[in-house]
């Protein structure tokens, strides 16, 4: 007998005006809407999504969460974000399949070990559990690893961060959408923003393909497409929009109990609770707004994975997809409000850190939108840091330290 499923967030008609309009029905936008309604009594909120909830980067990442970033500004935010997941899951009463299996970040050179050491002490200074392991200890927690010198870049050690892990990204988007809708937020799917109305330096509304909306506050939280929306009002951003690909293998018995990543091999992987190996790679270094995939990546991924874990030879990939990563020069996001346009807020430039930062950023962004005062936690991410010559130090991470330096 067919089961008629009830929509989790409904299909309300578009109103002619809202207190806040959030562009982007992904994790960042939905979390902001949820916390606006929950904490600040701002319930007249519209979330405008061009396709459907979680269609963009929110549903295309590899759902890894961790708090072992390099710079203190980033680290504190991600640490708080990591601690928020269990509370959010309980509060929304939605199973997001949070699995805090821990992350192991491999190093293949002395330079990378030094970078990891810096990152570990930063984490420990802020009370985040993170430690440096030698190659043998890496193998103890991930027996599939080949720590011999047969590798092109032998494993010298790694950074182990037990509190990290994975979630189910679709469930995060659905749970937040359901929670936001229950608090009065209106989610408008299949609605595309085609223009932003600005009068005398103030936002007055947005134009969509379903009609215009009046609003004094607009948040752009559209991931890789944020640059196009900012472009509607002539705003240029220090962002490169690059495609990043990910894939899953056929399901196999549990053999990998941690997220394993390697900057030198440009690979990260984990085994999902269903048994599939979920793996992603580096980005293609040319900007595009398409999400096509390539055979080169499957080949690259197969080579890297089977070199690090020879036991994977013969494993088949089942699906491959791509998403957009909005990369900034310092690997830190851009959060900016009321400058240069009053009422216009930006939440973009997350690169491939958008998933792990989603709910916690939404919580602070809601405060920002409600009070027009930027919370301390978000202040370091101002767009103005580039002209002030104060980029954040996030690129000093192992991914940039390989056998080549």
């Amino acid at each position: 007998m067919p089961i008629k499923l009830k929509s989790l967030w409904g299909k309300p008609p578009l109103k002619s005006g809202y207190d806040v309009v959030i562009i982007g029905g992904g994790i960042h936008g939905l979390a902001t809407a949820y916390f606006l309604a929950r904490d600040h009594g701002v319930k007249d909120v519209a979330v405008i999504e061009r396709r459907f909830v979680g269609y963009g980067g929110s549903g295309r990442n590899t759902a890894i969460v961790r708090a072992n970033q390099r710079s203190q500004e980033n680290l504190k935010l991600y640490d708080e974000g990591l601690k928020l997941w269990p509370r959010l899951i309980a509060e929304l009463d939605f199973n997001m399949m949070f699995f805090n299996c821990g992350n192991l970040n491999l190093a293949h050179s002395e330079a990378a070990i030094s970078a990891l050491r810096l990152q570990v002490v930063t984490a420990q200074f802020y009370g985040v559990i993170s430690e440096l392991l030698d190659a043998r200890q890496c193998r103890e927690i991930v027996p599939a690893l080949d720590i011999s010198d047969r590798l092109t870049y032998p494993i010298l050690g790694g950074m182990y961060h037990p509190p990290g892990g994975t979630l189910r990204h679709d469930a995060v988007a659905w749970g937040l959408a359901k929670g936001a809708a229950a608090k009065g937020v209106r989610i408008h799917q299949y609605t595309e923003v085609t223009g932003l109305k600005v009068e005398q330096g103030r936002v007055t509304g947005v134009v969509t393909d379903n009609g215009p909306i009046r609003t004094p506050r607009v948040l752009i939280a559209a991931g890789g497409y944020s640059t196009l929306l900012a472009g509607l009002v002539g705003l240029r951003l220090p962002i490169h929009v690059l495609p990043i690909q990910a894939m899953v293998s056929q399901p196999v018995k549990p053999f990998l109990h941690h997220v394993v990543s390697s900057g030198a091999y440009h690979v990260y992987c984990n085994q999902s609770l269903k048994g599939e190996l979920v793996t992603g790679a580096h980005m293609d270094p040319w900007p595009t707004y398409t999400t096509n995939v390539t055979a080169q990546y499957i080949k690259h991924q197969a080579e890297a994975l089977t070199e690090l874990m020879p036991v994977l030879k013969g494993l088949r990939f089942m699906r491959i997809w791509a998403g957009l990563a909005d990369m900034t020069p310092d690997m830190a996001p851009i959060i900016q409000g009321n400058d240069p346009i009053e009422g216009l807020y930006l939440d973009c430039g997350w690169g491939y850190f958008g998933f792990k930062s989603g709910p916690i950023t939404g919580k602070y962004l809601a405060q920002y939108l409600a009070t027009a005062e930027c919370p301390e936690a978000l202040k370091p991410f101002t767009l103005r840091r580039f002209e002030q010559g104060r980029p954040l130090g996030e690129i000093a991470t192992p991914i940039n330290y390989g056998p080549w330096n």
Partner: protein
Amino acid sequence: MSFMITCPICGRRDLYEFRFGGEERGPRPEEDGLTPRAYCEYVHMRTNAGGPQQEWWFHRDGCGLWFTVRRNTLTNREVSPPEAEG
């Protein structure tokens, strides 16, 4: 993501032979009276066009030439410059 790039010397080749060099952003600004904001605008800010854009490519695994092409970022196809369409 894969597509083809036309090198002025070697012709249409697979893009994995090339290195991307960024969108065309004009000459470096004059240093006289240059403000941090104007310099930042040149160094960091990008148009990120959703559509045709003029951009630099380097034929790394070929002839070693730096050149510009006009590519539509929504389709990844090269397009003729507007003046040629005239």
